[in-house]
């Protein structure tokens, strides 16, 4: 293995200006928000095309060096743009491969390169007259659409499933070969079905490239939603932690029938309030204790939010036209007398709820990044188990999770993003990364949470870089063997991100 020889050859092909080994760059590309520390790479390279990516992969095979592709590097709480191990050569695809290759306003799709962010596509769609919207996360607006889709990221509207609503890829395999998936695999110049049909002849290979390290996706089709003339949200605040059981039971039929077109954001007090203000209780205990229930109640009153607050939205021709739907949902959620209805216009005055509305509207927003300052020191990890949409189970999981957070002196910040049958539980672990004790507690909490949820048959939706081996080890041996066998077939020298998602 010779990284120097690889970089020398890479500079010859890309141009020296596209190979960066400056100390300050390498330090930054190794940084992340995890308790396990930074992972300094050997170099950062900026390919400009699929052909250049393929050439770099072939060079990596020749020199036996490990590559780590990243798009925009905004995978906050999951690893940022940090490789699984130090010493790899980062392929920063965001620098030059950030083109919106195609927008088809008749078929409603866009084809993008890895560097295209949610904000970039939203801006372009707006510039074209705003007839279409892309699903966005509530994370960084500059987050990459391909990276998010491949990591099984999600938004909140009808097209929330970013991998599910993608169609047609171009992929550089670990051998350096380039494939197009789906109808893109036809040897033709007029690939009219590449980004509109998922299920034509042959195996559906696309799934191989979600949460894996079998290839580098350099082009992806993403489906767009016609932007409705009006979007009207509704919100309900529930006073008690245990109300989660009732909430889940209320959400399920509304989603099962698709009466409500968006997912439900079922966020707890500290998730919403944490996006607005830092913890008022941190200093008193030096971060060693969870915030008290009394302090949480005070924050709920101050911010006009509940122990849980539910948000959803309708799409329609005008705000007035959606009044009957809103009244029906208000009647449904307020029937037991526990919920307080927060109408759209009132919610728009509350930043945490306005953020929800933006998310339903395909508008990238920075608001939720405020969660990153709940505790000082920049530590942040996301634990993302799910629950079936059964109220009692969801409540049991809440008690379980809350107890583990409290045992480790951390603050329980959770949003359940609820569909008809399943809700992903976005658990934020906020900690002071400059405090070794808090780092150790964050790591212990993450592992305890994962162990407890696995014991109940629940894995995570997305895994932070620190714990990907840990998660892979929880899976059945034959599944792990299959993953390794696919790796050997598509990337025999293991040059693409070895260890990413626990696959070697």
């Amino acid at each position, binding site marked *: 293995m010779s990284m120097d020889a690889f970089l020398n050859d890479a500079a010859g092909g890309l141009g020296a200006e596209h190979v960066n080994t400056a100390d*300050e*760059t390498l*330090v*930054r590309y190794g*940084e992340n*928000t995890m308790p396990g520390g930074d992972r300094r790479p050997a170099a950062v390279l*900026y390919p400009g095309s699929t052909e250049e990516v393929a050439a770099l992969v072939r060079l990596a095979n020749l020199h036996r060096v490990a590559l780590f592709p990243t798009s*925009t*590097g*905004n995978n*906050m709480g999951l690893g*940022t743009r940090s490789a699984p191990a130090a010493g790899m050569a980062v392929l*920063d695809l965001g*620098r030059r491969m950030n083109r919106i290759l195609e927008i088809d306003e008749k078929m409603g799709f866009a084809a993008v390169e890895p560097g295209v*962010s949610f904000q*970039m596509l939203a*801006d*372009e769609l*707006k*510039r074209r*007259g*705003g*007839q*279409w919207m892309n699903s966005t996360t509530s994370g*960084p*607006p*500059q987050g990459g659409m391909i990276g998010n889709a491949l990591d099984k990221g999600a938004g909140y509207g009808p097209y929330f499933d970013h991998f599910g609503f993608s169609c047609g890829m171009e992929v550089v395999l670990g051998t350096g070969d380039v494939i197009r998936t789906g109808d893109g695999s036809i040897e033709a110049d007029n690939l009219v079905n590449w980004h509109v049909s998922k299920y034509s002849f042959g195996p559906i290979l696309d799934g191989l490239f979600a949460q894996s390290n079998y290839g580098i996706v350099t082009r992806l089709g993403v489906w767009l939603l*016609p*932007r*409705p*003339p*009006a*979007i*009207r949200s509704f919100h309900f605040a529930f006073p008690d932690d245990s109300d989660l059981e009732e909430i889940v039971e209320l959400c399920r039929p509304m989603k099962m029938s698709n009466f409500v077109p968006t997912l439900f954001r079922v966020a707890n007090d500290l998730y919403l309030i944490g996006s607005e203000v830092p913890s008022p209780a941190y200093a008193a205990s030096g971060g060693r204790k969870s915030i008290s229930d009394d302090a949480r109640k005070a924050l709920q009153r101050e911010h006009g939010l509940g122990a849980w607050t539910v948000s959803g939205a309708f799409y*329609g*021709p*005008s*705000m*007035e036209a*959606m*009044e009957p739907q*809103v009244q029906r949902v*208000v009647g449904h959620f307020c029937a037991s007398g526990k919920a307080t*209805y927060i*109408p*759209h216009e009132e919610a*728009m005055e509350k930043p945490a709820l*306005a953020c929800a*509305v*933006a998310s339903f*509207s395909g*508008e990238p927003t*920075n608001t939720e*990044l*405020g*969660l*990153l*300052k709940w505790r000082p*020191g*920049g530590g942040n990890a996301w634990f993302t188990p799910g629950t079936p949409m059964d109220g009692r189970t969801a409540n049991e999981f809440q008690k379980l999770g809350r107890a583990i957070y409290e045992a480790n002196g951390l603050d329980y910040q959770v949003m359940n993003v609820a569909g008809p049958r399943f809700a992903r539980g976005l658990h934020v672990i906020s900690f002071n990364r400059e405090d070794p004790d808090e780092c150790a507690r964050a790591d212990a909490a993450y592992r305890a949470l994962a162990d407890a949820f696995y014991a109940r048959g629940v894995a995570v939706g997305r895994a932070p870089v620190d714990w990907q081996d840990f998660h892979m080890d929880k899976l059945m041996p034959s599944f792990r063997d299959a993953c390794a066998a696919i790796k050997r077939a598509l990337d025999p020298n293991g040059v693409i991100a070895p260890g990413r998602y626990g696959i070697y």
Partner: protein
Amino acid sequence: MKTAFTAAQLAEPEIAAADGILRTCVHYGFCTAVCPTYVLTRDENEAPRGRIDLIRAMLERGGRPDAKTVGHIDSCLSCNACMTTCAVDVDYLHLADIARAYIEENYRRPLSDQFVRRLVSRTVTDPARFARMTALARLARPVRALLPGRLRTLVDLAPAGLPPRRDFAGVHPAEGARRMRVALLQGCVQQALAPEINAATVRLLTRHGIEVVVPPEAGCCGAFTLHMGKADMARAAAARNVDAWHAELDVGGLDAVIVNASGCGTVVKDYARLLAEDPARREKAAAVAAIARDVTELLAPDDLKLPETAVPLTVAYHDACSLQHAQKIRGRPRALLRAAGFAVRDVPEGHFCCGSAGAYNMLQPEMAEALGRRKATHIESTGAAAAAAGNLGCLAQLGRFTGLPMLHTVELLDWATGGPRPDALRDVALPEPVARKQTVAPTGAPGAPPPAPPPDAPSDASSGGSTGAAIW
């Protein structure tokens, strides 16, 4: 971020302030994606995160800064896009001010650099001197090729000519019953370069029942010199304005101090901090800063006195960085323009600076030109017939790279409410006037929906926006 200042260093107020800011940065790096200089160079030291580290090292080390650090601080636009996106609210604006003042005090620039910076700081802030230098630049134009590069840039940037000088000092009574009384910052270079902006502002405000007073003693706000690290000059300018406006506040009362150049507005709103160490003016500065408003903050869309018809000109609205990132004003100018009847288009990559940035386009011409061309392309891509912004610097910078008419927001609002057609629109074919739509009255019932937004509602309204995909 951990810092390592000594107790002696922390005894200095500026170092203590810097330390407090530095400690909030945890290197998330959201700032990098929105920083124009990083996006164009991909150099970590050309991003806020890298600059923050350089500033920390410079201040901790003390003594004379190194040329590399100075270069990276000089190349920062102070557009503050990083502050809009920062998850932990790092106060980069003030950290950069502290760093620039430190450099000014402790770094010996090359003589040519000193000369140009001195020339710029003394010319742009004085309308009379600006006029003289403009005339001189006109004479130098035929021999520009013989000039050193830095001077050639200044000659190239100088306007071909200046409009007749107008001085708005004095009191401009409100038309009809007086609703408010405000002081207007007349500014420095704006007086010389674009007096029509102040004229439109005075007409617009007085037409809406607002008495406008322009104290003759007030002048440059200090922004130019502050961002060049010349803090003493900036404080002197601020002191002069605070004295003039506070005197008005005492005598006739003021509802607001109005600024129609957002770069200036950002600094005026920060006078309390700028003059915090001036015991004679500390409280006065705070009083003035507390009532400082951008001109678009003073009028609400419902306040506008509009005629029966509107000219539905399509206007691209450019968010000046100082307005959107520093003052956090994005929706109001759009709402006013829409209320006045204009069809407002957002500009793609709206968070990005146009490269004007005070003296930046004079001192960093290559980067400024790259950004100016990029922004102009985006503005033209909207298909608008004209572009509007709330800051003269942006208008002048973008005017170099696009043939579209560039107007200050108040010029359009003045025209729509009965003022003269702006000169910039003289040769533009205007759409036919249309009857103004009736405003939909809100129902007022508890929990009732708000009225539907107009078809091109601003992005920050987040309540819809399509012109109506057929499916809906």
